[in-house]
């Protein structure tokens, strides 16, 4: 399926990443290409060590040592990103217990990106974003240790949303949470996407979660992107590659 170029939001072309030097050198990601259209929700799945998080980190600009190209809104991005990039693309990390600064109150966590990007109306924006993620103003003056896991992840999502990005990179956003809290956060992602026309790129190893949130899913194995399926095809088990079938069987058993 070809996506017309004016609808392309995020694209990787022959992305390759290797770590280490000399004999220690290991190819972690090899020639991965995929395209996200505007408003898409795209999932990357695979077992640990298959390179899915590495791709996400390269996209987010956290790893500048890659080959190939990363395109955003049809323009190639430099390995070291500029500030404008981070207003459009934000990331939500796996573990809300580790991704919030323990000595910063919620409002300080949320005010920092506003200051960095020189946005106006700080107070209003903080109130708005807290409401959008299902919290309220009473959470402003709390420290992370005074919040539950689900509330922390909401704050982390609020921090990503406050600069009004168009793309969210999600690195296993619910795998550190209880099932009941996972349901809350997944619902929040669905609602936010509808309200704000967001584009999602989610990395996970949970098949049920990825088919719930994403319409298109790519399966990765040993650094290569094996195949791309629609969520419906995945449910039917319409996989071409033997590894994908094996992965599906292991997830369902």
């Amino acid at each position, binding site marked *: 399926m070809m996506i017309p170029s004016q609808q392309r939001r995020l694209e990787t072309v022959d992305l390759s990443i290797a770590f280490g030097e000399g004999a220690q050198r290991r190819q972690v990601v090899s020639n991965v290409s995929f395209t996200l259209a505007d408003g898409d929700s795209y999932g990357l799945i695979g*077992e*640990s*060590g298959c390179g899915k998080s590495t791709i996400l980190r390269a996209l987010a600009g956290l790893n500048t040592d890659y080959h190939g190209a990363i395109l955003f809104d049809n323009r190639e991005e430099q390995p070291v990103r500029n500030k404008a990039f981070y207003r459009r693309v934000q990331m939500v990390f796996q573990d809300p217990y580790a991704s919030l600064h323990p000595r910063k109150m919620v409002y300080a966590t949320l005010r920092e990106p506003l200051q960095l990007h020189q946005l106006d109306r700080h107070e209003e924006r903080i109130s708005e974003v807290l409401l959008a993620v299902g919290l309220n103003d009473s959470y402003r003056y709390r420290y992370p240790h005074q919040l539950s*896991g689900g509330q922390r992840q909401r704050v982390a999502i609020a921090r990503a949303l406050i600069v009004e990005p168009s793309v969210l990179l999600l690195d296993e956003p619910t795998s550190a949470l*209880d*099932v*009941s*809290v*996972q*349901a*809350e956060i*997944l*619902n929040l992602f*669905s609602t936010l996407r509808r309200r704000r026309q967001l584009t999602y790129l989610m990395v996970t*190893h*949970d*098949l*049920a*979660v990825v*088919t*719930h949130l994403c319409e298109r899913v790519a399966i990765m194995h040993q650094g290569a992107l094996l195949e791309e399926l629609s*969520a419906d095809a*995945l*449910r039917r088990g319409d996989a071409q590659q033997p590894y994908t079938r*094996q*992965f599906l069987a*292991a*997830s*369902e*058993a």
Partner: protein
Amino acid sequence: MNNSLLEVEDLNIIFKGAHQEQHAVRNVSFRVGREKLAIVGESGSGKSQTCRALLKLTPKAGRIEATRMQFDGIDLLAASEKQMRSLRGNRISMILQDPKFSLNPLMRIGDQVAEAYRLHSKVSQREAQQRALQMLEAVHIRDVEKVYRLYPHEISGGMGQRVMIAMMLIPEPDLIIADEPTSALDVTVRQQVLAILDELLARRNTGLLFISHDLNLVSRFCDRVLVMYAGRIVEEIAAADLHNARHPYTQALLASQPRLHQPVEMLSVPTRDAAWLQGPAWRNGVLV
């Protein structure tokens, strides 16, 4: 069940706080035989504390009260620290959540497994080494001679968890408490590790107390399920009947999981009812 290994009656765990006491576990009663029993609940529901209390590993700030706590004829409430030491690892052992934090980073894998064996039986070093190698083979580790000499940072999470299982099974305990043994693992590796655990349990007829928050996994792997909410057991049910659960909390937990073959627009989020703190509980579909 007649041949029950462990019997717990009216277990209460109370933590002393600065202002008020925190009642973490309230009137919990259950029995474990040579079977696979799961305890399911959200974080903070008291499932891990219940299991710690069985080994008397409750932190000092906590107080255990129970009418009865018996393991194979031994009264755990009255047992001295010395008696408890002879039970821990030897007869009741515990598999912890994350191998990264539970293995000694400065000791070779094989030596750790051999140490677990030597602590509980008087054998020579050579013999313990042989047993450790056999045990590593039993948990399907290839090339055991090489792995024996590796350090924990040199192996993957799945392999680390298998090493933990080997360590816990080598003294041949009667009961194993597994606290979320697979939640740090990938789906593909998780199946492998569970299959190995299952195989070894069946071979030795060992009882298992499996703590998890994953209802799907538990319903496939265990025989019976206890559902805990806010320190109470609100439902006890055979794993095969889980879809017929009666308690609204169990039903809500089941409904909150995304399912591959039943796509929904929005997941249902469990609403908590204050009445559940005191309210009715079900055992095998019957109100108690």
